């Protein structure tokens, strides 16, 4: 499922950046448009262009959690936006009009901002991810971003990089000296869900095989059952995923596993209906959550979380399983405790990050 743009649209200002040079060398036959400055969200409905621009804002930001639900205290390193994998539920469809993937070429500035950020709070532990507004490894075969990031994080005493992906593009990670400061994470779903709703992403087996390879190379891995989707027979579907997961990877090398049922801003509903009229992800009933997002009814969420948690802990009781954006009462009902009882969700994950 390798990403290959039909055309490159590059801002002249970043023509000399190492990232642009690398892309031009990797894709010598792809036509290029050189432009002065692209708009923030250029029209690009068909998504076949790769836009390379200078980013003019803050590269590092806290994850936009809300006060109503427990947030994991994650931070986002934003090096690009959009994704070509085309998951039906993808939230990016509501964030950006354009479907073109956009990369920020001024990586040196990103690294500088990141260095300052880490130096300003040396006593804190920083869990930082690049997979919020795109897939972390989607473009790695083209741009080798991991060659910049993994060694950088290896040298940081107080930071962990989480590369979240639905691809199996991990080859470049093999030879890197990561020193345990990079966690490679996959989002997981049953094969029939992947086929119907994540059709551009790697199949389950390929994801798990990639995770296995990463473990062999000494990386810790993580998994996100997010979005968990309710469909007739979901229990069996997720049970199979869990079985396959643990026949592929070593549970002791799993940093964390998150669970989060499908949720989205109401405006995404129309987009999904228009782009994917045959999807069944909107069939379940939704209620507006405290943060305004549509979510499954709480009893179903609790049921799904409790089921998955039991499956996972039944295989390895020391796994760190957490809920993404859920309230204390859902935690208590599904897991029997609240994050506050264990020092808070952020602290729980920080401990795992350093262990």
């Amino acid at each position, binding site marked *: 499922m390798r990403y290959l743009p039909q055309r490159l649209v590059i801002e002249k200002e970043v023509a000399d950046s190492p990232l642009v040079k690398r892309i031009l060398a990797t894709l010598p036959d792809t036509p290029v448009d050189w432009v002065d400055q692209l708009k923030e969200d250029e029209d690009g409905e068909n998504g076949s262009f790769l836009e390379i621009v200078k980013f003019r804002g803050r590269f590092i930001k806290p994850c936009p959690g809300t006060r*109503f639900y427990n947030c994991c205290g994650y931070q986002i390193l934003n090096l690009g936006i959009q994704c070509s994998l085309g998951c039906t539920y993808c939230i990016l469809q509501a964030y950006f009009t354009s479907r073109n993937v956009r990369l920020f070429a001024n990586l040196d500035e990103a690294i500088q901002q990141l260095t300052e950020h880490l130096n300003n709070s040396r006593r804190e532990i920083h869990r930082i991810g690049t997979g919020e507004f795109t897939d972390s490894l989607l473009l790695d075969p083209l741009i080798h971003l991991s060659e910049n990031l993994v060694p950088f994080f290896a040298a940081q005493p107080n930071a962990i990089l989480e590369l979240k992906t639905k691809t199996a593009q991990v080859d470049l990670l093999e030879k890197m000296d990561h020193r345990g400061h990079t966690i490679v994470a996959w989002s997981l779903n049953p094969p029939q869900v992947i086929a119907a709703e994540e059709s551009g992403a790697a199949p389950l087996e390929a994801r798990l095989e990639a995770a296995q390879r990463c473990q062999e190379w000494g990386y810790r891995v993580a998994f996100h059952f997010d979005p968990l989707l309710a469909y007739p027979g979901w229990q069996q579907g997720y049970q199979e995923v869990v079985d396959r997961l643990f026949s592929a990877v070593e549970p002791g090398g799993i940093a964390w596993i998150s669970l989060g049922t499908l949720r989205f801003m109401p405006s995404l509903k129309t987009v999904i209906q228009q782009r994917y009229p045959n999807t069944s992800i*909107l069939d379940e*009933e939704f209620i*507006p959550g*405290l943060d305004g997002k549509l979510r499954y*009814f*709480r009893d179903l969420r609790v049921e799904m979380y409790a089921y998955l948690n039991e499956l996972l802990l039944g295989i390895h009781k020391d796994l760190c399983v957490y809920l993404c954006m859920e309230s204390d009462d859902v935690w208590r*009902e599904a897991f029997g405790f609240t994050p506050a009882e264990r020092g808070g969700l952020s602290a729980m994950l920080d401990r795992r990050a350093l262990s």
Partner: protein
Amino acid sequence: MVEKESYSIQFEEVDWNDTSCLITYGPLPDKLILSIQTVGLIQKPLLQRKSDGLLRIICGSRRLAVCQQLGLEPLSCEVLSTAISPVASLRMAIYDNIAQRALNPVEKSLVLTKMAQHLDQAQLVQEFMPLLDLEPSDTLCGRYKKLPALEEPILDAIARGTLHERIGFALSPLEQGDRLAFFNFFQDLPFSVSVQEELVEAVVEIGRRDNLTPTQILDSEEVNDLRRAHKRPARQRAQQIRKQLQARRAPRLTARKERFAGEARDLGLPSGVRLIPPPYFEGPKWSLEFTFAGAEELAVRLRNVARLAEQARFQRIMERE
């Protein structure tokens, strides 16, 4: 100055099928017939000679229709020069109409649809939507542009104001049969506009989930039983049907509400006290509402509720099945 001249026309010269500049929709106003009958035609219709020799109506289609009905031939009209472009003629028709009256939603949709053939989207939205008293938005413009494809009874109802254009927007992506099924359903029962919107969404979603068409759902036995229970007032029937469809779309929430209602009843809360769950049972905050006459009554109710709150069944109300 617009180039035009007075000319006495025969009705056979008029190309009644050329609707390219017609944006009027709706029945002939009775007063127009009366006025022409009584004092004759005050304002002359405007037409344009076409290359085939026939005349295209630009402004005054209703006046022409009335005059034809009354046999007022030959009729003195204004005829535009052929040099005037189709878009300029259409613009004239639109401005002439809006200067005289407020357009109904179907007419607004005709303006946007017809003008869209000549202008780009940005110009259409910026110039014509404010002119039609509409918020200049691409999305809204897109919705209006879909209205003219709706069936005549639906358009008539929208033009008359008995069906809101928002319902026309909601019906436009559906199949013709389903649109008419909804239309008849809404003619039968007094739902507010927002409830009509809610019902279109719910029925379409139930259909998608259960592999049924909206028509099959609206014509199902359960719905029909309530719809035809004519002994009950229409408002009550409408409420019951809405409840039934909501329950079908959201069975988990409905079951939870029913369980809550039963348990709250069994709890035996003192009169004047109401337990209110969080909206959609989401979040931890439940409320109690007290109605009381004086401090003494409040104190008694508080004591009674405090006793109940210590019981396991009070706790159970807040828990999942």
